[in-house]
């Protein structure tokens, strides 16, 4: 199974893990989950849509990352996953 990881558990960052999957799974763990869960999920869904990816498992361990960081880490994780043989 292909897997891609990007980001970190430092403050203002997010650790994104993506895996090949037969359906879309988004699993969000955030220190600001109560306030921003929906916004984080929206960034993930928008980014996946932009990349044309429908089925993938995305796990986020968020330490207060802004939208641009979530998007950047997700794209890098997917590129790393896709680069695997």
């Amino acid at each position, binding site marked *: 199974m292909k897997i891609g990881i990007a*980001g970190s558990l430092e403050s203002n*960052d997010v650790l994104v893990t993506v895996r090949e999957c037969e359906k879309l799974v988004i699993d969000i763990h955030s220190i600001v989950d109560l306030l921003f869960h929906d916004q984080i999920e929206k960034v993930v869904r928008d980014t996946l849509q932009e990349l044309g990816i429908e089925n993938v498992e995305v796990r986020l361990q968020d330490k207060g990352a*802004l939208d*641009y*960081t979530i*998007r950047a*880490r997700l*794209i890098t994780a997917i590129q790393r996953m896709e680069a695997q043989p």
Partner: protein
Amino acid sequence: MRSFLFVPGNNPSMVQNADVFPADAVIFDLEDSVHVAEKDNARRLLRDYLTSHPSLPQKVAIRINAMDTPYYKADLEALVADEIDYIVLPKATVTTTQKLGSDLFALEQKRELNKHIDIIPIVELAASLVEVCKIAATSRVVAILFGAEDYCAEMEIKRTLAGEALFFPRSQIAVACRANGIIAIDTPFTDVADDEALLKDCHNGALLGMTAKAAIHPRQVGAINEAYSPAQDQIDWAKKVVKAEKEASSKGLGVFSLDGKMIDKPVIERARKTLAKAKQYNLAGQDDE
């Protein structure tokens, strides 16, 4: 331009706060501060930050990886955009600086950018120092950054607080920059906890003609800005000289005396430059000429 602050390109906490620091320019780093396994991560983070963040530093520079690395091309591809003012090129030589200029031109044309991106070569090799005048005269080069750590490592010499080891390269770079009307950026001071030594290092560079300095920590920026701005006594002196020159000129005098010292054209020019710099940094006050 007095201060150029390095910010690690893969650190969201620092990247997204880069616009609040009082540096005249911020250099987002893709080179030494980013691990080889994280170059793609940093590139993507910076790209998304620059294209989406509501406020950016007043001047944005990117230190890319050197041309002989596998990252150079990808760095340029990812980051050449209208949001960038300068590309900072490590281990620069005349050849690599010219090649970067060609590569930037091609990308600017391809992407139909509204901006002409300038180059800040880092002179940190003995061979680069030998040809620094040619580097300074290369198209798009608006400043040269001195990299003392690599220079000292190559030369097998020790950098000291007194700065003897850096006397020649600082002087050579300062003269090359002055001759070409560009900014001479002094090497960063690496002990971020020693404010007194930082000030001394700033003055060592300024005495030799460096006109700006790189910072590796936000706390260094204030001291650098102060050291590379005209001091109040210099501004007061410059105002007196310019005022006296006007009076002397009305009497048909080209040379005159002020406070017992001869004032002639070079001194007047120095006073004018001091006032121009003071105005640039809003230090001239209300009653300047």
